């Protein structure tokens, strides 16, 4: 029961923390909750479907189907986050004004809102797949009663969701009228971290084999195994010893996420 609790808590926390940031970043945009929820449902269904056919998919691409799939899903999420930062830019003034008067909702066209669905679906799919595979394994081999398992799973899920909700409310409360700027930077860092992860999956699949030498080691300062290290990893892609490929993906994505929106006409 506790093991299920811990693992489900960890995986769901990755989703809920990022969802908290995205929900805070889009605060005030009319109807965005619907699109985010759709993403959650699509991601969850996709995770269950792929879990069922995982043996087949994982064997593709010379046995590196997993790596290719993970890299693709991450890069899709990265490009969607950058697009979101771009299409939200013209609404900065309206959204900031709304913070003082929360009765008004800012209307946005439907097509850009689909980016939120795709980002959410990507996140939920990636972590959800691990949860689905793990849960199925536990359910078929454990000797514990179903009710204890459910309590463990629901407990982990609930705690992670609560933390995600607190991140959402906390981000809004602490940022004040700078909410848009703060969440834009946070999303840019999240995207950069995801891009670096994608770089590792591309290297793991053998598609890229250079620039793999680690450049430095900061585990003495913050270890990736520590709680703070894991938090920094989820929020901004912190790794102890990045290699040149990760650094390149990270810096390029961060630059694009910060610079491209400034070219959008307000």
């Amino acid at each position, binding site marked *: 029961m506790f093991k299920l609790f811990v693992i489900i808590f960890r995986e769901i926390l990755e989703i809920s923390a990022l969802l908290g940031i995205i929900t805070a970043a889009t605060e005030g945009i009319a109807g965005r909750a619907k699109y985010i929820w759709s993403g959650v449902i699509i991601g969850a269904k996709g995770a269950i479907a792929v879990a069922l056919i995982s043996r087949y998919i994982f064997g593709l691409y010379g046995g590196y189907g997993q790596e290719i799939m993970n890299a693709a899903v991450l890069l899709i999420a990265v490009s969607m986050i950058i697009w979101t930062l771009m299409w939200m830019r013209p609404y900065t003034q309206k959204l900031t004004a709304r913070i003082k008067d929360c009765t008004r909702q800012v209307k946005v066209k439907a097509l850009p809102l689909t980016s939120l669905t795709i980002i959410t679906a990507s996140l939920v799919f990636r972590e959800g797949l*691990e949860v689905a595979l793990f849960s199925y*394994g536990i359910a078929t081999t454990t000797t514990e009663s179903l009710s204890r398992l459910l309590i463990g799973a629901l407990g982990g899920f609930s705690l992670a969701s609560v933390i995600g909700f607190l991140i959402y409310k906390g981000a809004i409360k602490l940022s004040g009228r700078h909410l848009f700027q703060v969440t834009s930077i946070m999303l840019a860092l999240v995207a950069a971290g995801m891009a670096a992860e994608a770089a590792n999956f591309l290297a793991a699949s053998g598609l890229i084999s250079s620039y793999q030498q680690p450049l430095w080691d900061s585990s003495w300062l913050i270890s990736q195994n520590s709680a703070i290290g894991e938090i920094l990893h989820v929020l901004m892609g912190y790794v*102890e010893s990045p290699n040149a490929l990760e650094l390149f993906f990270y810096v390029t994505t961060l630059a694009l996420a910060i610079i491209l929106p400034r070219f959008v006409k307000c």
Partner: protein
Amino acid sequence: MPISKNSVKNLDIMLLHRILSLICILCAALYVHAGAKRYIIEIKDHKFIPHIVTVPAGELIELEIKNMDSTVEEFESHTLKREKIVPSRGSIIVKLGPLKPGVYDFFGEFHMETAQGQLIVR
């Protein structure tokens, strides 16, 4: 100028040729590790056997992880930068290297209490 049927066909063929070339390049890239030495690690009762593997530095390496359990496991290592699900009663191959000398920890994320191992590179 209206596009003639012929030029559309030519564009289609060019595009197809480009896509096929890209696929060939991608497939070739996957065989970079063709000469690498393979080390086998089994997962039994949520433990890695052997849990310490020594490999040479500066060379391409493959780890074949065979899951003898009926539960799925996730082979993961922060320092090796690898994360891969090993299906129950299945196996995966993890490409590594060239690695600098040192000790690299790896673990099974779904059974971290018992699934711990080290890759010693020297």
